[in-house]
């Protein structure tokens, strides 16, 4: 029984077929890798799954129920949270407030409650702050809680994005190249973090270029090339697959 199932998804931008009939099936509790050369359509698939782009065709199923990724906030409500390849934090807000924004959909007091400072408002705010602080601690950047997001180091910004995504209480966490621009020790910390997230019961979908990281972390991998799914399987299987080798290295090396 797969947790997220994506069937026959296509997406065209003008003359470019960015995705053609892509299938994806992720089981609950997996760390699932999505790899492929630059321009293979990984981020496009991400954007389609999370509703930023509307697919030209295809079926989507989350936890056995079909969902239509037509509006982004509905997808977040359904339980998919994401990070962005080019970090998109709320730059002028504090790290804590970034995570508090993430708590938005799982809280409900509106403008009236805020203006009247109702009891439910005060209780909810207190729990949001506690939750945001614990999430910052979870990803290991609680000491920067009151700093503006843009002043954080690159690696810490990536971790803050993960904390913000976790604040939406997702069942599926989609990470778009989380290790980009990180050094070796930052990558190690990131790997531990992703493993901890999985251990705590969330499913992870990962786009990553670092093959070593993907091979270590992922249970299953799908390889995209030119918008097509060219291989699917365990890291070992995928690494041996001739189509994958060809896509990455070209045909010339076989002589």
């Amino acid at each position: 029984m797969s947790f997220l199932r994506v069937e026959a998804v296509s997406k065209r931008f003008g003359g470019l077929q960015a995705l053609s009939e892509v299938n994806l099936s992720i089981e609950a509790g997996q760390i699932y890798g999505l790899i492929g050369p630059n321009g293979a359509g990984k981020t496009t698939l991400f954007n389609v799954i999370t509703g930023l782009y509307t697919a030209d065709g295809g079926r989507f199923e989350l936890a056995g129920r079909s969902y239509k990724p037509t509006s982004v906030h509905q997808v977040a409500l359904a339980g998919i949270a994401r990070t962005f390849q080019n970090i998109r934090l709320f730059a002028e807000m504090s790290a804590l407030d970034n995570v508090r924004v993430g708590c938005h959909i799982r809280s409900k007091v509106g403008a009236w409650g805020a203006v009247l400072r109702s009891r439910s408002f005060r209780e909810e705010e207190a729990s949001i702050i506690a939750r945001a602080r614990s999430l910052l601690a979870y990803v290991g950047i609680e000491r920067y809680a009151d700093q503006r997001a843009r002043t954080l180091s690159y690696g810490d910004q990536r971790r803050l994005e993960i904390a913000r995504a976790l604040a939406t209480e997702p069942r599926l966490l989609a990470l778009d190249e989380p290790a980009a621009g990180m050094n070796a020790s930052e990558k190690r910390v990131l790997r531990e973090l992703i493993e901890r997230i999985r251990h705590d019961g969330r499913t992870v979908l990962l786009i990553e270029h670092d093959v070593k990281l993907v091979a270590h972390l992922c249970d299953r991998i799908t390889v995209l090339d030119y918008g097509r799914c060219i291989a699917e399987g365990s890291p070992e299987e995928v690494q041996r697959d001739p189509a994958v080798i060809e896509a990455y290295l070209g045909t010339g090396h076989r002589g």
Partner: protein
Amino acid sequence: MMQPMRHRWLAFITAGIGLLLLPLFMQELGAGWVRIVALAMLYVLLALGLNIVVGYAGLLDLGFVAFYAVGAYMYALLASPHLAETFAAIAQHFPQGLHTPIWMVIPLGAALAAVFGVLLGIPVLKLRGDYLAIVTLGFGEIIRVFLNNLEHPVNITNGPRGLDRIDPMAVWGVSLGKPLLLGDYRISSVTLYYWLFLALVVLSVVICHRLEHSRVGRAWMAIREDEIAAKAMGIHTRDMKLLAFALGASFGGVAGAMFAAFQGFVSPESFTLMESIMLVAMVVLGGIGHLPGVILGAVMLAALPEVLRYVAGDIQNLTGGRIDAAILRQLLIALAMIGIMLLRPSGLWPSPERRAATPGAARA
């Protein structure tokens, strides 16, 4: 922890008493001065409303004066003889003429302006930045053009002649339209209005402050910082933007109703594009998104032209009367605005975060 809290309260109470007593001293100097500060309070109210849209949600609105006009005309129609004189049916139902008490005017003005805010908001949901500015600018002009022309075929707004004989406000039976006599002590009508406006400003500041530090305020700021990321966090950006437009507009509507009562007369001339631009300038010059800054900006830009009125005359005499005082005044305001923006690019009193974010702020 205790000490700074107590200091803050002490500062608030001192400032409050100072603001309450201010007009009593000023009325000795002349009613004109009290009038300036009373109008400044109205501008603070407007700037606070605009700050919700521009400062918090990051939606540039160059037509904000439209909501001011909506509030003003609403009160003018509901509290002047115009409608009863024009429509026999209304004269029959209200033989005393239309008079609307303040406790109905404030919620009605806020609600009506909020409706107009949503009307403006719906078509501009997908616009940002300069495109948004152009559409909102058009909206402001549309409202003004309507006010100018809605006298045919039925006379609703009385066109460019405007509406006069508007009732003054009355609070708990005390009319603000005439001086209040406490024994021998005479409190002028303008001072009474000042107090009413001050009360509304204090209420608005509390509302704005509470919104800013709430789930709603954070959602607005998230939209301002990065709309796509805000959506991805599950924020319903459409609803949140409309809420910002509606709430911001409601401040404008209340301010408009107060303006109509204060002047006793409204005409489309009071609601020009220039007013909208001045309002944006108040918010930006003061410190966008930061309440103390916005208030300071509004007071400064509202009072500056009036103060310059006194200065400009002297300078005019220096030139032998060759330069027109009104033009000189415009020139001085423009110079002051350029000066402020050059010296303090993030505003006179920016929020601590923004101040640090501005390159070169450390030098200044």
